[in-house]
């Protein structure tokens, strides 16, 4: 119960979709009534919103930030770009299938999704947490070798050590 009603989101402005988050936090579509507030640092957060396209340059900080979050943690991808490349489906620089590099618990389609869609997604996420289906972080640990291989294939040599197998 504690996890679903206290989702603190890492305030990582990933791509163009971040412009949709401040309206969701302010008075018109108040996200705080769901218990969602932006967290200052990844260690204090348990929700990661990937808002918009992910370029190769941004993929590194995204992975690093994701690994610094405490568990259990949930990832939600906004927009079409993380699903299949979206508007940038033929770009040399963006990531088309984010799910290969980072475990995603849910997607919100749209370019960009409206705040009502965001809140529908949150309630879906609550349902998934209740049923135990939001286990992206466990998947990450179980298949870390494969995830890391994918990351290294596209980013070259990574300058942080692999995750330790704890917890």
């Amino acid at each position, binding site marked *: 119960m504690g996890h679903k*009603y206290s989702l603190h989101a890492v305030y990582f402005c990933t791509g163009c979709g971040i412009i949709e988050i401040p309206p969701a936090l302010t008075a018109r579509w108040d996200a705080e*009534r769901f*218990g969602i507030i*932006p967290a*200052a640092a990844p*260690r204090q957060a*348990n929700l990661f919103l990937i808002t918009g396209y992910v370029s190769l340059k941004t993929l590194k900080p995204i992975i690093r930030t994701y690994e610094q979050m*405490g568990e259990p943690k949930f990832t939600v991808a906004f927009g079409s770009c993380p699903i299949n490349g979206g508007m940038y489906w033929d770009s040399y620089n963006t990531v088309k299938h984010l799910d290969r590099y980072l475990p995603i618990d849910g997607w919100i389609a749209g370019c960009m999704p409206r705040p009502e869609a965001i809140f529908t997604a949150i309630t879906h996420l609550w349902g998934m947490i209740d049923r135990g289906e939001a286990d992206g972080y466990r998947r990450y640990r179980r298949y870390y070798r494969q995830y890391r291989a994918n990351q290294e294939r596209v980013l070259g040599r990574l300058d942080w050590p692999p995750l330790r197998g704890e*917890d």
Partner: protein
Amino acid sequence: MRIAAIVFSPLLALAGGLFFLGLARKVAARVGWRCGPPLVQPVIDIIRLLNQSSVSHGGLFSLGIVFALAGAAAVVLFLPLGGPPPFRESGGLLAILYLMLLAPLGIALSGGAAANPNSSIGVSRSLILTLAYELPFLLILLAVMTRYGTISLVKIVESQAGGGWAIFSLPLLLSGIAYLLILPAILGFRPFEIANAPQEIASGALVEYGGRFLALATIQQALNLFIGPALFVNLFLGGAGNPLFFFAKMLAVFTGVLLVNAAYPRLRLEQAVGYLWRWPTLIALAGLAAVMWW
């Protein structure tokens, strides 16, 4: 009986503090035409944090937060909360003042041990801000202690039971007003939120806190929220006969802080120090001078 009071008192303070935290978020939301989270949101946050994994940066890192929480809890054990304090008085208001400095020091110790420049900046800001509000705060406490001729908090409360609330006597009215002016700084609310600025320094000393550490830090913040108004009620509003009246008086004091918190932005450090060393200091100085020579 005493054991029950020793166990019950910090829990009461924690409950009150968490209620105040939730109330702060709710009032800030309502003033901003939002709905806001439920009042029990801080409790949910703490439960979630206790169940989340975290990392540690070494022995000093863990020790610091333990000290901070121990300091806050120890202060509560010596405060009269609408009845005699659980621990027999030792050292009076001066000991309470000194125990209150364990909390920022503990956070400073673990913030430094985190080896993150954000923490170091945050600690530096928090210590400067504390120094800044201590100037008028000490003048206020000295005025009250000189007026009643004792350093014992219990005796100050008792004198007011006989002679009327301190805030209604003219010299101490000035000190009371000064206390209300610096109360947001003591509690770390806007406009004096610079030490924990989320957007500027990634929450300062708390940047490397996750999971259980952040839960303890939130508990410590809740206890701090309780101590500030509780001291005001004891010093200026005559304490209370039972915890319920005490809490009602605290709520009356706290409402002003909540409204200021909802309305004001954050002051920069130089602006905050400049403000704290101007009007509240002058009013507190006037109060002390009035107590001495009137």
